[in-house]
């Protein structure tokens, strides 16, 4: 399963990169989100994902069931998901602002300071 999921993670990265190399800002953002998803899955897969009971302590016990899933990567990924969500939200606002202000969603037409002195 590890091999299969390595393939999936690689595919998510490849798809994300392919989209990021497009000119339209929306596709770039979708690509970045895919790469983010890929990174989260990579952590999960690399740290030994398998079908297992969740890291919850059942009533009456003082530790999760034997063979439970590793809680630490879950906490890390959860943090990363929320951070990714926040950053994506800002990026969306930026994309919208950029399209409105610059009148294009074409990344090849972004102005730079060179030759634009007032």
């Amino acid at each position, binding site marked *: 399963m590890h091999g299969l999921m390595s393939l999936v993670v690689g595919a998510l990265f490849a798809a994300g990169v392919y989209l990021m190399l497009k000119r339209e800002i929306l596709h770039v953002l979708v690509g970045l989100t895919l790469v983010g998803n890929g990174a989260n899955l990579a952590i999960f897969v690399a740290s030994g994902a398998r079908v297992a009971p*969740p890291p*919850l*302590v059942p009533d009456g016990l003082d530790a999760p069931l034997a063979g439970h899933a590793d809680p630490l990567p879950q906490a890390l990924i*959860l943090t990363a998901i*929320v951070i990714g969500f*926040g950053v994506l*939200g800002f990026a*969306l*606002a930026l994309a*919208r602002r950029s399209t409105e202000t610059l009148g294009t969603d074409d990344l090849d037409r972004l102005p730079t300071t060179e030759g634009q002195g007032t």
Partner: protein
Amino acid sequence: MNTVILRTAARYLAPTLIILSLWLLWRGHNAPGGGFIGGLVAGSAVVLHAIAFGPVAARRALRGSPRAWMAIGMALALGAALLGFVFGETLLDAAWVDVPGVGPLGTPLIFDVGVFAVVVGAVSGFTLALWPEGAEPGAEEA
């Protein structure tokens, strides 16, 4: 989309989501849930409200600006972190009180409430920020 059905659904669904989010927040320490998940659910309620009744109504329903939610949430989290100095030895040192019948209550819960508030503020902030100008519901749109 039929606005009447949507509004009716939202009128009942949004409060349900809020209650659900509070429940997820409360039980999060012991079962799946917590400040993040609760906050996301509550934020979804705001989004739903906005889709049904428009951003102005959503802002009103929020009882305070997203910025205030986030600032207060961060203040709560920071306060909980600093309480570690008062009751313990260092930053974020958890302090617990065993309340009979309820169970242990402690600074991590305050911290989680802060997280909840920030997430609510952030989700509604994104939604209101991205809401297209002049696109009030009722005006026909996709």
